[in-house]
């Protein structure tokens, strides 16, 4: 594996500082099934997830973030009980930064009184 060291990246017309590319890349991401027996579909820089309870999960990083000032973005699709439909735009996801080593993600529906499990949950971390 080789390393390219450059201050700028250009397509021949427009140039951008390489720091934008490095800092703008997701430092970790994960897509998992939060229903039935919870399982991870795919990821980068994730060692495991913790099924904390109904609709609540923890994403544990392999390479920890430098501090707890990073950003976590989470999205959801689908419910496990059939109460709410797939692709329902009212599904909500909540991402919370808790520690340099893990982030918390949760899923909810406005009509629900509590967290609920979802068929597809995704999270991306930027720092």
């Amino acid at each position: 594996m080789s390393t390219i060291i450059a201050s700028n990246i250009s397509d021949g017309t427009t140039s951008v500082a390489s720091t934008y590319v490095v800092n703008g890349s997701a430092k970790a991401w994960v897509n998992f099934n939060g229903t039935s027996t919870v399982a991870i579909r795919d990821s980068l820089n994730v060692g495991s997830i913790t099924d904390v309870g109904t609709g609540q999960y923890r994403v544990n990083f392999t390479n920890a973030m430098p501090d707890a000032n990073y950003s976590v973005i989470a999205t959801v699709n689908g419910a496990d009980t059939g109460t709410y439909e797939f692709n329902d735009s009212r599904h909500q996801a909540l991402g919370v930064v808790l520690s340099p080593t893990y982030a918390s993600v949760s899923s909810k529906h406005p009509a629900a009184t509590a967290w609920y499990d979802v068929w597809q949950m995704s999270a991306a971390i930027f720092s």
Partner: protein
Amino acid sequence: MRIQMTTTLHLWDRLAEAKSHLTPVQSKYRVLFEDSQDEPAKVLVPDPNWMAAALAGSILPPIDTYLRDRDVPDGQPKEHPYAEPIGPMTEEEAIEYLIMKDISPAVWRDYVGNRVVLKITPVELIPSDRSFRNAWKITQDAERIAA
């Protein structure tokens, strides 16, 4: 497939390289644990890309680097991204590694009570029906190892 890595690569680069070459491995195991009497049993789910890296070797740092990094203040350089990677692990060793990395030592090292608060269990023994998920506790019956 075995990836040859140089020790100068950052852990982030090793993980990215591993993801592009290794086939993900879905673990046969889950880890049930209880870290609070007031909360339901939690389930640790190994990541398939991480498991592939653990089985391949030459990617993950020694577990003791993670343990030492727990005491490093936020914003200070951590040891584990730069540590020399360790060799291949068995799946059982990888699960033990993951327990020490992602579960509080209060559960796997410091707990002194009689109640079983941590179990490594085959995935098929984890209930797939998540009814009453927030009431799950680890059964204390030695013959039954489901939540």
